[in-house]
């Protein structure tokens, strides 16, 4: 799995105007980080990046878990990852230049997350259906605008049809599972571009 590190990160939605600034001041204390975390939590900012010649700090809300967490049997010795019980947002990615390559992570096909794209995941185990019955049209197609609360698909489990609703507003950019396929808990079903 070779995910080339993406070149300059594209600006994030509602990013503060001066997010990427270069300052000669090189030191960043714990209090500063706390302050930044508080600020990011309060403001409607989803990602914050700060870089100087010596420091690279990135704060991201609701992003994917840092790769270091729960990496299986690391192949090379790396700075002992701290055991993090999955703490919800915001997540701080430590000031390493490149995120630690997640060793043979089993989720090999998970694409690098595109900024501004939200994934609808399955809350239950079952069989995925794009429409309410085999003869009707799919609930949504790629390119459709969707809003929060709108039904996207059905996951059938134990003979019950569970309607899965969208939790954001945006545009469907990809359907990730084929009709009639089994899905597990947390499996990505749709990619929705926010906005």
């Amino acid at each position: 799995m070779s995910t080339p590190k993406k070149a300059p990160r594209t600006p994030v939605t509602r990013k503060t105007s001066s997010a990427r600034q270069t300052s000669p001041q090189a030191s960043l204390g714990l209090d500063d980080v706390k302050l930044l975390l508080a600020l990011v939590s309060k403001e409607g900012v989803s990602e914050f990046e700060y870089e100087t010649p010596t420091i690279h700090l990135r704060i991201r809300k609701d992003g994917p878990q840092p790769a270091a967490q729960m990496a299986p049997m690391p192949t090379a010795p790396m700075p002992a990852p701290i055991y993090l019980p999955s703490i919800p947002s915001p997540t701080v990615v430590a000031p390493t230049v490149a995120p630690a390559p997640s060793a043979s992570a089993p989720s090999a096909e998970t694409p690098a997350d595109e900024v501004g794209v939200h994934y609808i995941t399955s809350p239950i185990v079952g069989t995925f259906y794009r429409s309410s019955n085999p003869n009707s049209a799919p609930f949504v197609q790629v390119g459709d605008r969707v809003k929060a609360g709108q039904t996207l698909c059905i996951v059938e489990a134990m003979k019950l049809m569970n309607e899965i609703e969208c939790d954001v507003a945006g545009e469907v950019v990809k359907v990730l599972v084929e009709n009639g396929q089994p899905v597990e808990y947390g499996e990505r079903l749709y990619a929705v571009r926010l906005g």
Partner: protein
Amino acid sequence: MAAIKRKGAVHKAADKTGKHDDPPFRKILVANRGEIALRVILACKELGIQTVAVYSEADRHALHVRFADEEVCIGPAPSGKSYLNIPQVIAAAEITGAEAIHPGYGFLSENPHFVDVCQACGITFVGPNADIIRMMGNKAQAKATMKAAGVPMMPGSDGVVETVEEALVEAERIGYPVIVKASAGGGGRGMRIVNTPDELPDLYNTARSEAKAAFNDDAVYMEKYLLEPRHIEVQILGDLFGNIIHLGERECSIQRRHQKLIEESPSPAISPELRKRICDTAVRAAKAVGYYNAGTIEFLLDARGDFFFMEMNTRVQVEHPITELVSGVDIVKEQFRIAAGRKLTVTQDDIVLRGHAIECRINAEDPFKFTPCPGRITALNFPGGPGIRIDSAVYQDAVIPPYYDSMVAKLIAYGSDRTEALARMRRALDTIIVEGIKTTGPLHRRIIEHPDFVKGQFSTKWLEGFLEELDQEMAKTAE
């Protein structure tokens, strides 16, 4: 694309010479995690059964997931939302086409509702039926059923003892010493041990006042008080044709707050005559309820050789490996054959108990304070050599998550007799290395070299006394 990975290993039965039977199932789901999930998967590999692992998000890198043929994530870390979530487990069986579910121990293994749901969905539950589980899960009902089957019960008052006069009569009938217990009670409150009729009135009244204060209910009952009780349990196997056999007993007296630490088979306290009596009683009890699949009947044994029914466990036990080693029967494999409606592969006459086996439960806990110690295992060495078996699902760099039990490994030593088994356990404990977390290993090492343990002289109360000794010893060293 789908996250439910099919690793596609097509198994053939281990031996096609006709010596081994066809697989009892084509594909089964293991509704558990940790060492027992792995134990079940290993049995399936030997039988040629395909396996489906279910896991929570905290167990993504667990070995049971790695070694199963298919895997389904069923929820977030808390077990209520994953391993105990019945709709998720059933849905996982449905989408993978698993014919049967093995529940392991804990989690859903003794949940009669789960067994009902399995049946309604056409999935075989590897265990007894829901009615038996329900009956044995209800203490009062279990006792009544066992009493009717002629199984000895702890002598006691039938229900609440209302007055001092009544208490004196009951105590005389039961025989001193007796224990007065709060009906609503637990945790030692509202409990008094009475040795003679003289002291009964005062102690009876104190127990009632204490019960009133602690539980706002002063109802008390009485039972015989055993001075040096041992926890003895008998392993049972039964098929759907009414054949029931026992695989001998297990001695589980080394325990702390009802948590077993060390088990062995056979018990050093049991003569062949007593073994026959206690095991025959267990078989009779199992027959009385029409039991099938693997089960365990637990007794308290007193110093005089009298034993009394405690409870029946309707699942495979944590300590089943010691029985497997002395009996030569693979209990988990038998469970699958029984569930598939086949007859037991052995009769009682085929069972010859040979040698001695001891198990130490190595937990991720402080060895002397017992506080749980989850975390990453930074270095790991499992001992090997003759007579050592380890049932574990950890590996170097594995993380013991804080959400589940603290089991790291079951270290099991087998020898031709108790002396050899103990010697092997000693050197195994000397060479086991688990770094990064604290484990109970050092405590086990201290216990097995204690003269009482070496002589086989201990009761369910022994460990408490030994831990106090250790406390004093540590206090002294600190001075």
